[in-house]
């Protein structure tokens, strides 16, 4: 359900309220939230930030119309597009590198991926981390049945770790740093997995109806994100200070986490490796298609649509043309 509209600045119509579903990921969107950039841009409009623990919860919220914008990883995005969720991708926030990793407990005696067999590894099902873990196992030729993979939401992984319920976890920031702090070792990162083809990223999605009703709002929000990414790159030090509050990490840890992902500004979206342009679609559609197919193979999701459908869900017509 979309909220009623009100006249905003200029001639463009603004809704009374913009609801943004975000995740705690050390990217430009989180910085925009931390710096209040959206509030500045949409003065007079209520900007509501709603936190989610994983992309699957964002999907549910998008489906039920509870939020206008959302952020999901590529696997939940592939699932959402395949299932015809009422949203489209308007932005690629980042490509994941070391920010998601398989952390194992010291002293359990796991030294490589093979060693995880017979152990309990936690991750959040349907997420980028789950995808990377399954990809890594497949790349190493390990049967996923030979270990116990547990579905635990990110915020609860530390608790399970401390209680001794799990031996390791494939998870993102800030949980990852916290686990390392509590006696964990990095065994493998998403950068390693991506190098062998299992690329993951985080994208912004928007309600289709919202987009057609308020294209300018989406464009304005893209400019907010762009502004955030510029700030992110230009002043990493001050950005990390702002982000550390959102992440619940120290400034140093935050800075490190920022370096573990590749954030993209608005201009980069149109590059061939990413969204591309309306007349020259980028490779991101194929990435989503591959992701979706892998998930189907793993029986994580039911079905995957064809490439054209994925490409149709990518809105590369919203960026300022240079």
């Amino acid at each position, binding site marked *: 359900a979309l909220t009623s509209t009100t006249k905003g600045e200029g001639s463009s119509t603004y809704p009374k309220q913009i609801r943004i579903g975000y995740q705690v990921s050390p990217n430009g969107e989180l910085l925009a939230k931390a710096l209040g950039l959206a509030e500045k841009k949409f003065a007079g409009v209520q900007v509501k930030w709603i936190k989610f623990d994983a992309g699957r919860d964002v999907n549910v919220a998008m489906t*039920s119309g509870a939020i206008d914008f959302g952020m999901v990883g590529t696997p939940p995005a592939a699932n959402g597009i395949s299932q015809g969720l009422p949203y489209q991708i308007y932005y690629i926030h980042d490509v994941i590198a070391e920010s998601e990793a398989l952390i194992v407990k010291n002293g359990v005696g796991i030294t490589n991926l093979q060693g995880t067999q017979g152990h309990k590894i936690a991750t959040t099902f349907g997420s980028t981390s789950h995808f990377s873990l399954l990809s890594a196992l497949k790349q190493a030729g390990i049967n996923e049945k030979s270990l116990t993979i547990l579905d635990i939401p990110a915020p*609860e992984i*530390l*608790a399970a770790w*401390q209680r001794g319920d799990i031996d390791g976890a494939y998870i993102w920031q800030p949980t990852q740093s916290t686990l390392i702090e509590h006696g964990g070792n990095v065994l493998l990162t998403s950068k390693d997995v991506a190098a062998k083809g299992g690329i993951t990223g985080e994208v912004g999605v928007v309600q289709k109806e919202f987009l057609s009703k308020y294209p300018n709002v989406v464009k304005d929000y893209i400019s907010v994100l762009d502004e955030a990414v510029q700030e992110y790159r230009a002043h990493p030090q001050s950005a990390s200070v702002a982000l550390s509050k959102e992440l619940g990490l120290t400034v140093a840890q935050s800075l490190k986490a920022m370096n573990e992902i590749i954030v993209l500004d608005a201009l980069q979206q149109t590059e061939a490796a990413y969204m591309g342009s309306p007349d020259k679609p980028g490779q991101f559609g194929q990435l989503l298609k591959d992701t979706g197919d892998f998930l189907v193979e793993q029986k994580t999701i039911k079905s995957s649509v064809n490439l054209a459908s994925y490409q149709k869900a990518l809105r590369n017509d919203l960026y300022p043309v240079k």
Partner: protein
Amino acid sequence: MRPAISVKEKPKHSRSIARKGVHPYIYRGISASAVIVAGLLWWLISSLHVVSSLFMPSPAEVWAAFLEIIKDGYKGETLLGHIGASLWRLFVAISIAFVTAVPLGILCGRFRWLQAIFDPFVEFYRPLPPLAYYSLLVLWFGIEDTSKILLLFLSAFAPLFITSVYSVQRVPKDRISGATSLGAKGWSLYIYIIFPSCLPDLLTALRTAVGVAYSTLVAAEMVAAISGIGWMVLDASKFLRSDVIYVGIIIMGVIAVLIDVLIRSAMHKWCPWTEQS
């Protein structure tokens, strides 16, 4: 043939009163002692550090957490705010359940064909674990209060509806006949005779309904909540704040007892004639 003195209307013997007069204090004392002993055991175990305070914080820690929450609230909301949010959801859900389930139940109790229509649906969803259909509610009604309240509403609806039906069917036929012979008919019959006849049962059902809804309160606050006492306990458990978990559980227990006392005293006040039996 025939009893010389009929025994049907024996005066109620005072024996039970005599018995109850003296003893309860003893038993209350025993109960109180048991609670105190349990408290001491708690204190002892936690102060001997037999188990980590992660698993069992000491009474002192729990008390400190309680004071802290009273002072600073929990994650952006005061304690009263959390309690208020939960009770508000409960209250709205129960109220809607009452004003829908009771009239519908009364009608179904009077007209069996109507009951036959609703019965299969109520009987089917009633035993379902609320969390099973909560997924659907969230999908249909979003992640905000609507779906939470609906979940509580649905768990409260069934007991109220079923009791209303049953209660109407139990209204003595003679009472309704008698009322019609005194000139009651149509709506008067429902308002002046059937509803008050069912009232004691309805209040009992309300007790059950509140109990059932209360027990789904935490489940309702599981999805995308940022307030509510149930959410507080869940959130605390994610961060292993066992002291806060204890505080939350104790508060929830106390609230449950208070609500029950409230409903029982309403029953006592509004339906004094049901007490004796």
